[in-house]
């Protein structure tokens, strides 16, 4: 029996990898049509990213937000919600972090300061996710639509802050915040890579454990599987859903804190734009399995890091990366069609 099961999951993994290969073949055809040599292009992509420390560092750094945002999204999905809001929650998380870093905790020691900033960032994301959660449970508004709208609102809030109270007085009037103090930067592991990746993997493990091995995770599974059955079991469906929205927001907010304190150092109007959508895609590519979403997040990260090479080495338009990303995504979603997230 168990061997059969293993074979089944092995088959699934193989077909998943197969779909990625097919995606690359399709993109190869596109490259040919553009007059580029696909083999050379792929070689450039891999070499630039995977054969040197700078490339690998970039890959890891960029994976971190995608991992966190994907895992965050999968929590909501497990409660039967389609929550696209990690984009906005990430924005608000960054906004809260930078505000606290520049106005409240400027002179705090590193460890205490970072812990407090993490809490503040999570609080920001949780609040923003919580609002969408309230819309859902109190007014029965569709969470997919409210979160998309709230994503746009978050851009405007960030702009308002960056053009306003956050603006760096020494920034030559550029719309950007003051740089955070060095003491509030995340410690480095090696090169430019900070401890964010470890935090992200810890969060993945925690979420996996939470979803699969706790009573609340069990309740979420019921709510996702059949809300009617959840009501009949005396489970407060709205409470579970609200909680899931808040938890998603908190993790997205944490991703924002890591970006500010680990990578960006300051907030611009365009900082991390679209990361949330890519994280959302990473979650759905991984069938909302938190562990698998590490892999999909790394793939998305690889595509966005290595894609730049196509632009300057193979003379391809900048949008080629996005085309490749869409093909990979569609291929995997095709494989997953009709499959329930489990």
């Amino acid at each position, binding site marked *: 029996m168990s061997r059969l099961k293993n074979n089944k999951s092995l088959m699934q993994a193989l077909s998943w990898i197969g779909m990625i290969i097919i995606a690359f073949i399709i993109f190869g055809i596109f490259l040919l049509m553009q007059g580029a040599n696909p083999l050379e292009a792929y070689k450039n992509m891999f070499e630039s990213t995977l054969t040197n420390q700078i490339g690998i560092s970039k890959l890891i750094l960029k994976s971190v937000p995608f991992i966190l945002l994907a895992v965050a999204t999968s929590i909501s999905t497990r409660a039967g919600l389609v929550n696209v809001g990690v984009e906005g929650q990430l924005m608000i998380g960054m906004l809260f972090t930078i505000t606290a870093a520049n106005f409240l905790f400027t002179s705090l020691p590193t460890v205490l300061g970072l812990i407090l900033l993490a809490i503040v960032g999570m609080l920001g994301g949780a609040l923003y996710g919580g609002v969408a959660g309230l819309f859902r449970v109190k007014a029965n508004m569709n969470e997919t639509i409210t979160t998309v709208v709230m994503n746009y609102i978050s851009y405007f809030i960030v702009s308002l802050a960056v053009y306003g109270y956050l603006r760096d007085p020494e920034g030559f009037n550029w719309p950007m915040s003051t740089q955070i103090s060095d003491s509030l930067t995340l410690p480095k592991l090696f090169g430019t890579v900070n401890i964010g990746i470890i935090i992200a993997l810890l969060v993945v493990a925690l979420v996996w454990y939470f979803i699969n*091995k706790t009573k609340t995770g*069990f309740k979420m599974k*019921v709510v996702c599987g*059949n809300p009617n059955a959840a009501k*009949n*079991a*005396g489970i407060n469906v709205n409470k579970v859903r609200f909680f899931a929205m808040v938890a998603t927001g908190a993790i997205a907010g944490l991703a924002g804190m890591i970006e500010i304190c680990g990578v960006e150092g300051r907030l611009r109007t365009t900082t991390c734009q679209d990361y949330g959508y890519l994280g959302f895609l990473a979650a759905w590519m991984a069938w909302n399995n938190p562990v698998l979403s590490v892999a999909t997040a790394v793939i998305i990260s690889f595509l966005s890091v290595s894609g730049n090479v196509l632009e300057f080495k193979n003379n391809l338009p900048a949008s080629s990366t996005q085309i490749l990303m869409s093909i990979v995504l569609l291929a995997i979603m095709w494989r997953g069609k009709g499959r329930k997230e489990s």
Partner: protein
Amino acid sequence: MARKYFPFLETVDLTIKFKDFVANDAVSLQFYKGFIHSIVGENGAGKSTLMKMLYGVYHPTSGKIKVDNQVVEMTPTIAMEKGIGMVFQDFRLIPAFTALENIMMALPKSKLKLGRAEICKEIKEISEKYKIAIDPDMYVWEMDLGQRQRVEIIKVMMMGKPELLIFDEPTSVLTVHEAQAFLEMLVELKNNNIAVALITHKLNEVLAVSDTISVLRHGKVKCTIEKEEGFDKEKLVGLIMGVEEGEKNTVKSFDRLEIKEVHPMLECKDMRIKDEHGRSILKHASLTVNSGEIVGVAGISGRGQRELLESIFGLKDIAEGTIKIDSVDFTDKETIDRINSGMSFISEDPKRDNVVEGMEIRDHFVLAGVTPDSKGLDYDWKKLQQNLESEDYVKDLGVPQLNRQMSTLSGGNIQRAVLARAAIRRPKVLLASYPIRGLDIGTAQTVHRILIQLRNQGSAILLVSEDMDEIFEMSDSIVVLSNNSITEKFDPKKITPYEIGELMIGGAKDE
């Protein structure tokens, strides 16, 4: 009666396998026009599978289906062309559409051309001719199961001129009067030279209308009896349950113990309950169920049975009135509080209300208040499984292996699991809605025995059913949903099913 010519439809050594499991084994049966042929058997005997092959939903592994003496590769489209109509056990209706829209979707193009008004007229004609009342403009989601079935039947009858109509458990959700009317309709069909195939657990109905009865057991035809040979109910039960001849029937009588200390366990006072549209479906409704008492709730389907039970279980707020459990006011408390206080609810549609996709049977026990020990932040699943496996109720009811996925089980097996998990808790108050629906005779009797056992142990049981026999056999007292309220309690020994039926219809007049 002599058979004329050859049968309209004939199966020859029909066999179907699902992996290693032989669901039907060399089944040879004949269906003649103008005759009613009943197929009886336990749950899982292969009745529904057989019918689905006749309708082309499943394809036989070996064997042939002949229509008008010609071999046919059956598919649903061909079945429709040949005039074979099937009323499925799980209705194929779309809840978001009205009855009329559902019927129109099933109609062939030629008929659709008639237009909405004409079709509506035809529905009304059929509905009057065969006394199957439906409201074409009502949405399916608003309907209870009885009403849904009536739509389904009319839908199938509208699809073309039927030659063979297959009914899968048609009367299980109908009231006594409706079932009677339904049987009359079957006879009407038969007189119009239509072949009727009838699958049902209700032997009385089978005996009343059948020309031929075939018993299916473990996928094989055990025997086929013609009316002329004479039907014998006792013998039929024995054949269905596999009791060898001469051996005594396994059914035990239910001993009702005298309960000494009786106190009200469930008290509902002066409730006003609204339906989905905000109309008061029950007004000034009061009801008391004592410990050790089974109160049967009779009524035409859709008169507030579902709303009543859902209100008592806390799934629905009541507009006025109070609900007390064991003398404690629970009116404003949540479902979970009621479960924890010892209330169990067997819903009218466990698939809709209880089954969670992707979860094992074991997990579903936890959902109904069977609380396992904690192990860290999780439940101790291993221990729960061991405990459940040793439970008598789980064994008695034949609940399938606990690690199987609940959503893959048949309706009857889901019902077994739902009943077992309710009984295990020895609930203070048990709300049971159609507890034996979809179960075979043997299991149904086990369920009734368990209900009596629970009653003897002091459970207060509210039993909702449209089966008069069940209500009268099981209840210590009977109430009727009528005139948008609940009647006083009647003693089943002092009132007749006919009088109860009158009361039920009294409620229908005031619509």
